[in-house]
C-alpha cells in the first residue's frame, strides 16, 4: 500500500475518533455546568480551560475568547473551523482524508462520511444544536459509531483496516489520558469537597462512556482510584488506555507479521514496551508519581508510538540509487 494512503487512513481513524471524543466531552461538561455552583465568567473560564486543555486547545481559546461563557466555548469546540480540533474541523479533515483515499475504502464508508460532513456543515446541524443539544451530540456520536461499524463490516481487515485501527486507538488512548488528567486540574480548581469530587469523577466516567462499565464492575460509589483503574488499566473496557495500547500493538504486529515478545521496527518496540508496562503494573504504581505526571508520561509515550509509525511506514528515509535497485529486486522476489 502507498505510504500516503496509509497516512490518510491513520488520520481518518484518528479524526473520526477525535470528533466523537470531543462531542462526548463537551456534551458531558455542558451538562455538568448546569449542576455546578458557578455562575461568574472567571470561574467558568477556570472550569472550561482544563476541558479545552484536554482537547489540546487551551492556548488558542485563551487568545481568542476574552469573555468566556459555556455557549461560546462550546461553539469554539464544536463549530469553529479556525480551531483545527473543533468537531467541524475534525469531520472536515476526516472527509478530506476519505476523499483522498476514496478508491481504497468502501463506498459505504465514503458515502456515510460525506453525508455526515455535509450535514454537519449545513444549517440543519446548527438548528439542532440550538434546539436540542442532547440530540445534536447524540447524532454526532452515532455518526462516528456508525463509521466504525460500517468500516468493520464493509472493509477487508487487511493493511488498510489496521492503519485505521492504529489511528483510532492511539487517539482514543490519548483522549482518555487527557480526560483523567483534566480531573486533576478541576479538583485543584474547585477543591476536594466530597460532592464536588463525586460529581466530577462521574463526569469523567461519562466523558469516556464508562459510567455503566464502572457500575457493573465495582458496584459502589464513584471513587477516584477505581475510576483511574478502570480508565487506565482495565483490559476489557474499550476506552481504557491499556486496552487501546494493546489494540495498537496487535495491529502493528499484524502489519509486520512479528510475534509478541519480539519487534522488527521502532513502532512495535515502543507499543510492545508500553503494553507490557501497563500489563505488569498496578494502578498504585502507575499513579505513584502523581496522576498528572503519570498522564503526562503516558501522553509522551503515545506520541512516540505515533512518530515511530510515521518514520517506519509513512516517511522512511529512502536509500540512494544502488540500494534501491537491490531492494526493489528483493521486493519482487517475495
Amino acid at each position: 500500500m502507498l505510504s500516503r494512503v496509509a497516512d490518510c487512513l491513520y488520520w481518518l481513524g484518528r479524526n473520526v475518533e477525535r470528533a466523537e471524543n470531543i462531542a462526548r466531552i463537551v456534551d458531558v461538561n455542558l451538562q455538568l455546568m448546569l449542576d455546578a455552583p458557578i455562575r461568574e465568567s472567571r470561574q467558568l473560564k477556570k472550569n472550561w480551560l482544563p476541558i479545552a486543555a484536554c482537547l489540546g486547545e487551551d492556548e488558542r481559546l485563551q487568545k481568542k475568547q476574552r469573555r468566556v461563557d459555556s455557549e461560546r466555548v462550546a461553539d469554539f469546540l464544536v463549530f469553529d473551523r479556525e480551531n483545527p480540533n473543533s468537531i467541524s474541523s475534525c469531520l472536515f479533515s476526516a472527509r478530506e482524508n476519505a476523499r483522498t483515499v476514496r478508491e481504497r475504502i468502501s463506498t459505504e464508508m465514503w458515502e456515510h462520511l460525506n453525508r455526515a460532513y455535509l450535514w454537519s456543515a449545513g444549517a440543519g446541524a446548527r438548528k439542532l444544536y440550538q434546539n436540542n443539544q442532547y440530540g445534536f451530540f447524540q447524532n454526532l456520536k452515532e455518526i462516528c459509531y456508525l463509521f466504525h461499524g460500517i468500516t468493520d463490516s464493509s472493509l477487508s481487515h487487511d493493511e488498510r483496516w489496521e492503519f485505521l485501527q492504529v489511528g483510532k486507538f492511539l487517539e482514543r488512548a490519548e483522549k482518555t489520558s487527557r480526560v483523567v488528567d483534566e480531573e486533576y486540574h478541576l479538583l485543584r480548581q474547585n477543591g476536594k469537597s466530597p460532592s464536588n469530587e463525586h460529581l466530577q469523577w462521574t463526569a469523567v466516567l461519562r466523558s469516556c462512556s464508562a459510567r455503566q462499565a464502572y457500575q457493573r464492575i465495582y458496584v459502589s460509589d464513584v471513587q477516584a482510584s477505581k475510576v483511574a483503574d478502570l480508565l487506565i488499566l482495565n483490559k476489557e473496557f474499550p476506552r481504557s488506555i491499556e486496552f487501546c495500547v494493546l489494540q495498537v500493538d496487535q495491529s502493528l504486529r499484524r502489519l509486520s507479521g512479528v510475534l509478541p515478545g519480539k519487534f522488527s521496527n521502532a513502532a512495535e518496540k515502543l507499543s510492545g514496551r508500553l503494553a507490557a508496562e501497563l500489563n505488569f503494573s498496578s494502578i498504585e504504581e502507575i499513579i505513584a508519581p502523581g496522576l498528572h505526571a503519570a498522564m503526562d508520561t503516558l501522553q509522551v509515550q503515545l506520541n512516540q508510538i505515533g512518530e515511530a509509525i510515521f518514520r517506519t511506514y509513512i516517511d522512511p528515509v529512502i536509500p540512494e540509487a544502488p540500494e534501491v535497485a537491490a531492494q526493489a529486486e528483493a521486493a519482487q522476489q517475495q
Partner: protein
Amino acid sequence: MTTASSKKQPPLSKNPFAKYQLDQFFDEMFDANLKVRPHYDKLLRRFSQLAGDELEQRRLMADLSFLNQGITFTVYNDTKGTERIFPFDLIPRVIPAAEWAHIESGLIQRITALNLFLHDIYHSRHILRDKVISEEHVLGATHYRPEFAGFQVPRNIYIHVCGTDLVRDETGQYLVLEDNARCPSGVSYVLENRQTLKRVFPRFFRAYGVRPVEHYPAELLKVLQYIAPRGRPDSKVVLLTPGIYNSAYYEHSFLARQMGIEIVEGRDLVVRNGHVFMRTTKGLESVDVIYRRVDDDFLDPKVFRPDSALGVPGLVEAYRAGNVSLANSIGTGVADDKLTYHFVPQMIKYYLQQDPILPNVPTYLACDPTDHQFIMENLPKLVVKAVNESGGYGMLIGPKASKAEIEKFRGLIEKKPRNYIAQPTLALSRHPCFINGGFEGRHVDLRPYVLYGEKVSIIPGGLTRVALKKGSLVVNSSQGGGSKDTWVLEGNS
C-alpha cells in the same frame, strides 16, 4: 402541435412539450415541424405519462444522489473552494445506431491521422517538408516538445485517450469542434450519469435497447497494459493525479477504483537508476505504466517547469530510457492546438488518402494574412479562441461580447496572431431540458472518448454537455454547463 401519431398519445393539454419552442435551431428531439423524431418517440410518451411534479422530484433525487456520492467538482478561480455538483439534466440524448456508426468511423479516422501526424512531426517531418502544413505552425506551437524529436514512444501510439468535441449545425450535420489530446476529462460523468438515470428511471431502459458504457474502465486498462515497457504482462499501472484540489480529482479516483489500480501523487513516486518506484509501507515498488492526469509542464521539474510540486523529478529520464510508459505521451498538445486543428482534414487526406468523414468547423487563422483581415473586420460575428486554451477559457463570443471585450481581443490578436483562431458563431443544435418545471431547448455538444491501444475503441456515446443558461453556447462545467446521459441505440428507434 403535432407529435407522434400514436393513439396512446396523451391529450394535448397534458403534453409537457405543448409550449416547446424550436427558435429556428436544429433540435435533437423534434424536427422543424415539431414532429418528434422516431428515436425519441418512446421517450416522449414516457415523459408525457409522468405527473406534473414527478419529474421535479426525480430531479431532486438525482441531485441528492450525486451530492451524497461526492460527485462534485471545485471551480477554478473560486477562492472559497466551493464544491458543486455538475448539473445533470434528466432527459437523455438519444443517438440512433446509423448516426453513431457514422460518428464512430469519423472518430477512428481522425485519431488514426492525428497519431500518424504526431509520429511524423517528431521524426521525419514529411508533412512539413511537403508543405501541407507550414513548419512554423507546428514547431511554433506552445505544446510542441522539441526535446522529444526522434523519441520512440511505446507501440508508436501518442494519443491513447482522446476526447473529441462534436457539435451539430443548423442542418444537423456533425462537425468536429476540437480535439482534446492531452488529458481529456469528463468520462466519469458518462458512467455516473448512466447509473443515476438507471436509478431514477429504471423503466426507461427496458423500453429502449441502449448500448452499455460500463466497460470503459476495463477498455482503458487494456490500453494501459498494452503499452507497458517491453510488453511486460504483469505490469504495474498507476494513475498520476495532481491531488484532491484538482477539479477532476473525483474522476481520477473513480477511474482508479474502477480499474483497480493505485492512484498516486507526484510525491508518492521516486526515480532511482532511471526506474520509477512508488513509496509503499513495504518499501519501494516499481511502476511500469503511468496514466497521467497531469499536463506535460508539471510532469518533471527537472525537465519542464522547475516550480512544479506535482511532478516527479527524473520521470522524463525514466521515460526516455523506456523504463516507464506514459499515457498520453509527452508532446501530444501540439495535436490539439487549435491551429493544428485547422489542418486535420488535410492530414487525413495526406496520411490516409481519404476524405474526412466528420468535417471541421470553418476556421480562420489570425496568422494567415487573408484570414487575419477577415477576422478583424468581422469580430462581432465570430467566436475567437486562444489556440492552446481549453475549458471555455480565453474565448470571445463576438455576438455576445461588449465593445470593450471585442477591442481587448483585437489588441490580443494583433499582438500574437499565432495564438488565435476564429470561427463563425455556430447555431449549435438544441435539446429539450427540464428547466423550472417545464421543457426548454438548450444548446448541446457531444464529447466521445476515443481509446487507442491494440485497436481503437470508443464507448457508445460519450458526454453530452449542455449550456443550461438560456441562450448560452458555452457548455463547460466551469461556466454554467451541465450534462445529460447519452444513449446510443442498438437500432434506429
